[in-house]
């Protein structure tokens, strides 16, 4: 079904793509949840994916992480095609994600939940002891940066929603991923919490972490992302510089209504 004209094996130095999703289609019975979407996620940038509810954002994320099968299209991660690679292997290759809803393990403490991410077996060629020390340092560092130090011994149900979401993000970061997929990480957060998360993401980008951010908050997308994709009814309706994309009539109509202005 792949009908791309670009030869898939050409390794151009200019296209250091972390993720290359080409002509991806995901159908549920007769419903075309995602219908021919191409996304090229380049290294070290924050990519945004914007779209109204039901536009197929989360579905394409599920497709990219191989939680749902593709109807057609191809997926490449760091130059490796992975159309038939199981999800758990992708995590070991360096693909980390957060979910739209908080999915922490209720019986574990915050620290244990974060450690779950650190446990992901990524072979790094160092001795076990060195790896354990490194892991411990990484966990301490992430806990510190996400401001969770005072919550480590608490369990998720004892904490506020905003803190729970931060634990989710911390758990994904601690996997030390190549690519971080964030499914509405700031949904339901207060303004100041959102700014904190946005600052954290920019901070991670400065360290070279590639990110794909799925979000509803237009202002945050414009402020945070380097490149924006806009979706509706399973298709891309715009892509490019965030501030420009949100100004295009198609995006305005699909997403914001006609009264919204990006520079307002």
């Amino acid at each position, binding site marked *: 079904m792949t009908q791309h004209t670009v030869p898939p094996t050409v390794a151009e130095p200019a296209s250091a793509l972390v993720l290359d999703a080409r002509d991806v289609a995901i159908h549920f019975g007769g419903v075309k949840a995602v219908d021919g979407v191409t996304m090229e996620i380049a290294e070290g940038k924050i990519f945004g994916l914007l779209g109204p509810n039901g536009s197929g954002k989360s579905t394409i994320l599920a497709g990219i992480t191989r939680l749902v099968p593709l109807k057609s299209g191809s997926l490449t991660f760091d130059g490796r095609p992975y159309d038939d690679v199981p*999800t*758990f292997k992708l995590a070991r290759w360096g693909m980390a994600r957060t979910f739209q809803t908080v999915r922490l*393990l209720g019986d574990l403490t915050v620290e244990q939940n974060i450690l779950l991410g650190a446990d992901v077996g990524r072979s790094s060629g160092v001795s076990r002891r060195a790896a354990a020390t490194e892991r411990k340092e990484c966990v301490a560092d992430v806990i510190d940066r996400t401001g969770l130090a005072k919550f480590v011994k608490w369990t998720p149900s004892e904490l506020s929603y905003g803190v729970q979401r931060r634990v989710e993000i911390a758990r994904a970061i601690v996997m030390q991923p190549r690519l971080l997929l964030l499914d509405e990480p700031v949904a339901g957060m207060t303004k100041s919490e959102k700014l904190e998360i946005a600052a954290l993401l920019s901070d991670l980008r400065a360290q070279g972490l590639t990110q794909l951010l799925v979000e509803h908050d237009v202002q945050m997308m414009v402020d945070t992302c380097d490149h924006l994709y806009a979706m509706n009814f399973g298709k891309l309706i715009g892509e490019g510089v965030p501030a420009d994309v949100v100004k295009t009539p198609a995006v305005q109509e699909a997403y914001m209504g006609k009264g919204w202005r990006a520079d307002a």
Partner: protein
Amino acid sequence: MSAWYDAHLILVQATFISFLVALSIQFPMRMGVFSFAGVANYALGAYTAAIVVVRSDEIVSPVVSVGAGVLVAVVVSLILALIVRRLRGLYLAMATISVSLIVQVIAFNGGELTGGASGMFGVISDLTIGSVIVVCVVAAGILTWTERGTLGRRIDAVRDDPELAVSMGINVNRYRLVAFVGSGVFGSLAGGLEVLLRSTISPVNVGFSLVVTALTIIIVGGYRSWVGAAIGAVIVTWLPFYLQAMERYQQVIYGLFVVVAAIFVPGGLLGIADQARRRLVRRQLEHEDQEAAAEQDAGGAAVVDAVGASRKEEAR
């Protein structure tokens, strides 16, 4: 002690065997696999061990006869795991109960090999209760290891949120396979050891009532850890014995006890203990929180004082 022990030997044996039977269902349940194949494995372990002992001309070591049962059960468990790999929840429970009932039917109709409805007798061996206890302690030791640290967390993830687990790099299917194999090992150990202790086995011993017993143990004790199975095994084995004084009310009280446990104590007795421990930890954390806040306030006040003092000096 010795007199008491001799009088209660059967119950002591039953406690340890029940513990292993419960593990054959609790172990997969901890990984989110709702399988009752443990009872089929019990039957396979018991009958295989019995057949090996009875058919052999020489005295067979328990290691060999029980080992043969474990081997058969593990092979069957692996095949079963492949067949039902797409089933979850209630459907898996039904399928595995059916497997247990099929094994029982085979035992009934096995003719000379299984002894048919009357079962098998004269399964003589030199197995002692001491060896059974050693097996249980080793099992508990291994399970303790699986309940801690990285492995413990991963098993929690596999059970509570398989989709999250695969996103965290955990091969959930492999854990499910281990769940079936573990059920095979624990169930067949229970069956093999029990048949050698009691020297007899019949199809009535491997039926649906064993499923109910195992489930009761787990519900009363708690399914989160082998400790729950141990607590449950003690209660389910000994409570009816002490309720004998109640005569005809015995069954009613026992039934009520189980119902109350199922409704009001979903995590079993172990769950109550865990909750109490968590409450203590929480109180401690809140206390620390308050202290930290108070300290901060005091620190802040000191700063304000210092600023105030310097301002006063400036004013002079």
